[in-house]
């Protein structure tokens, strides 16, 4: 085989919320680090946030990938330098204590993770909006307040030095923070480089085979490897490397359903998302605002386009909202020979499906309270909801099988755990190997019920620090 030949002390596969801090800390610790990122480098400001152009350049498969199952659940993954942090809403929630307890983390672990959260929050400038909110966020707050439902503003990793309003923030994503730190400390970041598989010598991984965006093949030799490709690509790559035991079998997600609310005033902001979230029914059920550019408004109306389509011309008065659940179902990721992308399946339980319907109805009630004149739920055959009586029609006609169920927050395909049935130990080392570590959302034992980026970063930073202590 000809082409690229590389060598490193530490190989980091992927450059998102797990890979970027892993690379920065390892490079700053004096190790020779190479980061291989499948997607391109796109600087902030080059594309409009939440736009179709962004979907083309920074998302895997143009933005939408289906997970098979009934119903089909679509999901999105970042595929660019910085990974999901370049395209997500930038909302930040520490993992709740009860979630850490469920993950088997005790007093000292919890204190350590929260100390890391303090650090991350400083590095990423995590804060609430100092100035004006966008209207879609304010309406969500108003509806929740009218019903007496608990709600708050999610902090975000944003820099407001250009001005205090929500739309003046600059995202402190990985390409603005940990990736520059990594390269400043000598790490080499190679975009357009996909790792196809690891080559093992017994229980030790020694080399990775890679392919580049311009069609070359190559290899990289390394001492240790951190796999940080996200909850879909990480297990798929490990499976292609022959590491299959308990890997990719426990995908956890937060399934969501959407609706579009129409108001009497102009409320639409095409390039930002609401920061208020309704936590009254958390962790089972959470509500928030989605990106609402005209294309996404059209998408949210598309399930009943025949009746809802006319509304899209009024997109300036419309905003899209979601209801997310913590699911009792689980999914699988399976790499298939000869296919570039893995097969992903996910099964909702009966309770999950019921909860999606109840969540959508409660969200619709909230938006009527907020002053919406019409609510368009995203499932086939949905009624246009204008009155409380229409909410009964919504519940009676909703079925998850007719809904556009989608998800972000993919987790748990290589869960850590103290028990030997967990594929990774509590620091992310794959039990079947001596030097393959997983350090991304795949590691989280289940979906945390909140935006998971803080959990991913805190766990990843803790793990890489323990690694650095062990090889010092």
């Amino acid at each position, binding site marked *: 085989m000809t082409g690229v030949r590389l060598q490193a002390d530490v190989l980091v596969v992927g450059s998102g919320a797990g890979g970027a801090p892993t690379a920065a800390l390892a490079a700053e610790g004096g190790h020779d680090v190479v980061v291989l990122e499948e997607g391109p480098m796109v600087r902030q400001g080059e594309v409009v946030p939440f736009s179709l152009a962004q979907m083309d350049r920074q998302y895997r498969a143009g933005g939408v990938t289906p997970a098979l199952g009934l119903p089909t659940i679509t999901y999105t993954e970042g595929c660019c330098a910085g990974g999901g942090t370049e395209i997500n809403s930038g909302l930040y929630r520490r993992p709740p204590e009860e979630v850490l307890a469920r993950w088997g983390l005790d007093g000292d672990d919890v204190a350590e993770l929260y100390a890391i959260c303090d650090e991350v929050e400083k590095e990423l400038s995590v804060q609430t909006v100092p100035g004006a909110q966008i209207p879609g966020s304010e309406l969500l707050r108003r509806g929740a307040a009218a*019903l*007496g*439902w608990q709600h708050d503003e999610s902090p975000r990793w944003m820099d407001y030095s250009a001005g205090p309003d929500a739309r003046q923030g600059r995202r402190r994503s990985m390409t603005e923070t940990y990736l520059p730190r990594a390269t400043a400390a000598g790490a080499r970041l190679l975009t357009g480089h996909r790792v196809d598989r690891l080559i093992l010598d017994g229980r030790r991984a020694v080399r990775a085979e890679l392919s580049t965006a311009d069609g070359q093949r190559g290899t990289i030799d390394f001492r240790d490897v951190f796999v940080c490709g996200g909850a879909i690509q990480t297990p798929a790559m490990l499976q292609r490397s022959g590491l299959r035991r308990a890997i990719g079998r426990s995908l956890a997600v937060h399934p969501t359903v959407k609706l579009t609310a129409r108001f009497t005033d102009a409320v639409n902001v095409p390039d930002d998302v609401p920061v208020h979230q309704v936590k*009254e*029914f958390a962790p*089972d059920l959470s509500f928030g605002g989605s990106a609402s550019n005209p294309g996404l408004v059209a998408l949210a109306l598309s399930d009943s386009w025949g009746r809802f389509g006319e509304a899209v011309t009024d997109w300036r008065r419309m905003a899209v909202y979601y209801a997310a659940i913590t699911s009792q179902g689980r999914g699988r990721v399976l790499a298939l020979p000869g296919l570039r992308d893995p097969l992903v399946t996910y099964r909702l339980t009966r*309770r999950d499906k*019921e*909860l999606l*319907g*109840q969540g959508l*109805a*409660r969200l*619709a*009630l909230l938006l009527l*309270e907020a002053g919406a004149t019409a609510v368009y739920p995203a499932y086939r055959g949905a009624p246009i909801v204008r009155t*409380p*009586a229409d*909410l*009964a029609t*919504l*519940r*009676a006609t909703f079925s998850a099988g007719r809904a556009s169920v989608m998800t972000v927050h993919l987790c748990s395909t290589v869960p850590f755990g103290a028990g030997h049935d967990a594929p990774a130990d509590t620091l992310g080392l794959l039990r079947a190997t001596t030097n393959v570590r997983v350090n991304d959302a795949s590691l989280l034992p289940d979906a945390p019920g909140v935006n998971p980026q803080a959990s991913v970063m805190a766990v990843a930073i803790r793990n890489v620090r323990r690694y650095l202590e062990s090889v010092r």
Partner: protein
Amino acid sequence: MTPAAPSTSRVRPPDTTIVTGAGGWLGRALLDHLSNERSVRALVTTAADAAAIGTPAEVSANGVTAIVGDVRRPDGLAELFDGATGEVDVIHAAGVIHPGRVDEFEEVNARGTANVMAAALAHGARRVVHVSSNSPFGTNTDRLDTFRNDEPYHPYAGYGRSKMRAELAVHDAVRGGLNAVIVRPPWFYGPFQPPRQTTFFKLVRTGRFPVIGDGRQRRSMVYVGNLVQGVLAAELTATAPGRAWWIADAEPYEVAEIVATVGRALVAEGFDVAPNRVRLPAIAARLAERADLALQRTGRYVQQLHVLGEMGTTIACDISVARDELGYDPQVALEEGMRRSIRWCLDQGLEL
């Protein structure tokens, strides 16, 4: 900043209080509370009901005048309202829960409520309290979920649909200028219970009450005396028209706990109680629910199927808004309420 909730201020009772459904379980409990205190005009469906409330038809006693009429016919309410003098409040407690035919749900609960609201509006009533139910909201999706004060409608079967339409009729009347509010009690218990309810005690006493699954599903219940307090608080507390509140005991109970508590109450009242031994798998309740819904589509109603179908589910509600806005504060909980209920049955000569 939200100001601290003002302590609830009560208005004085009206000159005349109209009570519909006065021969029913709640109606009789209300009259027991209001007689000798207020001037009440009580609507009953038959002369026998009038006798049962201790007031022969068209005769006043203890301040109560019984009037035989029917909420299903607008003219059936004329006498009830025409004789009411001064300031008038209306407590609309008439409804049918276990009908002979499914049609009665719509006729009595939905149309009857619209008729009562129209009459109250025409008569210039001061305040109207409509007694609704949990049924317009169905069941909780998860046994840990609790209904908040405001929830989307999701009616359960024919009864739930009719009680939802009744609420919608109340809201229509409010838009037309009526000062009406809604209370939503779940499953009641306590004195004045209809004879069919003795089955409940018999099943528990003989150890044959069907507990579905592990019995951990939660149910809100309301002691009828607590409900009377809640209804009167809704009547006499000045609030915006159109408000609605859950009126229930302080906390929901688990089904297994309900059966155990009723058993203890029976023992405390001198009964021998056999250990409960009927555990049905969750599927039994699901099948009963399906059979009930299928029969209801054909217009038939079988009480046992309906009740069994509901036993597997959680119906739990949160009364905190009623506490805040009405000063509602339920005093009686399950064991004491059941003991009172048992004693009442024995006093009536009912066999448990």
